[in-house]
């Protein structure tokens, strides 16, 4: 069983958490987004083999939602952190420095 590190509670069995799917921020201006952008947001997923940025919820723990970078094949978890406004900037921000 994977050990997932909650940014608040520390390492816990993954069964304490709820998986919240691939990180998929809502377009800042839904009305203004193009139809393609909107369908992309609603349905399309990259579903890649590799490190994926995704939501988790520590439901039976502290109740926080947080982000994890996890390899979808090996299960290795690179890091976990609480959401911050610059996370919405899109995939490019993944390369930006974070604590």
């Amino acid at each position: 069983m994977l050990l997932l590190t909650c940014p608040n509670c520390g390492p816990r069995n993954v069964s304490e958490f709820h998986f919240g799917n691939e990180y998929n921020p809502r377009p800042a201006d839904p009305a203004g987004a193009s139809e393609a952008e909107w369908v992309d947001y609603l349905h399309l997923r990259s579903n890649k083999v590799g490190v994926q940025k995704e939501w988790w919820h520590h439901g039976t723990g502290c109740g926080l939602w947080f982000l994890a970078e996890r390899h979808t094949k090996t299960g290795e978890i690179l890091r976990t952190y609480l959401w911050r406004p610059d996370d919405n900037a899109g995939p490019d921000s993944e390369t930006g420095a974070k604590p």
Partner: protein
Amino acid sequence: MSLKLFREALAGRQRLPRMWRQHSLRDSYEAVIIGGGAHGLACAYHLAKDHGITDVAVVEKTYIGSGGSGRNTAIVRSNYLTPDGVRFYDASLKLYEDLARDLDFNVMLGQRGHLTLAHSDSSVITMRRRAETNRLVGVDSRLIFPEEIARLCPDLDLSDRPRYPILAALYHPPGGIIRHDAVVWGYAHQADARGVHIHQNTAATGIDIQNGKVIGVQTTRGRIKTDTVLNATAGWGAIISDMAGVKLPMSTRPLQAFVTEPLKPFLNVVIVSGSLHAYVSQSDRGELVCGGSVDPYASYSMNSSLDFLETLAGHLLALFPCLPKVRVLRQWAGLCDMTPDYSPIMGKTPVEGFHIDLGWGTYGFKASPICGKTLAELLATGRTPDLIRPFRLSRFAEYDLVGEGGAASVGH
């Protein structure tokens, strides 16, 4: 005992024909099918048989049937929820019923009945809704109550339990199980016999596209020129589609299963409980084949988990309290390409010549024959058959989902 076998027994092993041959990879094929599962091989078979197209390569990363087709719990049925779904799966079941003759290979279809249990009054309603739709489309399916359930499956716990009481069941007499590997081998054998090349240990690594059209497939054994490609790689489908730049509404989740040690006949029908996320059947070899819901998070790993064993064991005992001493022999996992509306995605994509047969999630094995037939028609004629039109990729952009959530989620 068949005469053929008799002859083989006398002939000795040297003269046994190979079920399929090995070929060197040609540098071009009329069509390339990626994925040597039941879907890909069925399509190859129908291309050759129905349309006379035999210049076809099936490329398979490892061995045929190594994907979902070799890992599924082999339940076939057609009692879905939407009329589109029921018609489609019914057409598939009909093909299955004659498959042994078509392929001259016994796929051991056992139609001993399929029961989906209802543990709450809301699920009684869903079951009734399914039964009613099914019957209107001509599929044998009805709602039955504990007395009849007890006759079909005497060892179920039908007592007045606080949690998960069994209030009713959707009974589907033609549902049952099949020898899944035999389906794969049978299709491979007959496709091969008609000239299709089956290339095992050959992985697709890229799709060549020019001006929005497919011109070839790159593989670990070399490049193939072709203008017609079918992506039939199920759990790996997003990876192949990504090579063609086609993004899909799909998420890959592992689904696990286990078998027990062999037992004398104990369970004649297939038992499915959606609320308990559990289903079980007994194979002809005597093992109980048991499955549950998909893993709780997305992954491309086919590792087994202990959590799955523990949870499913608990749920099986809730259904059959007399099984605590039966032992689990082996557990395994496969990958499922889940879609938001629990319906597949079949047909054309924005890239000309690049077709998909994906989104089969946890329930696609039963659809193999009809997928093979309809997709072969599409590949051969360029026209999308009516039967699969509801499942087109563009339904997502058109906000026209199919909505099989109520019948497919744990139903298999």
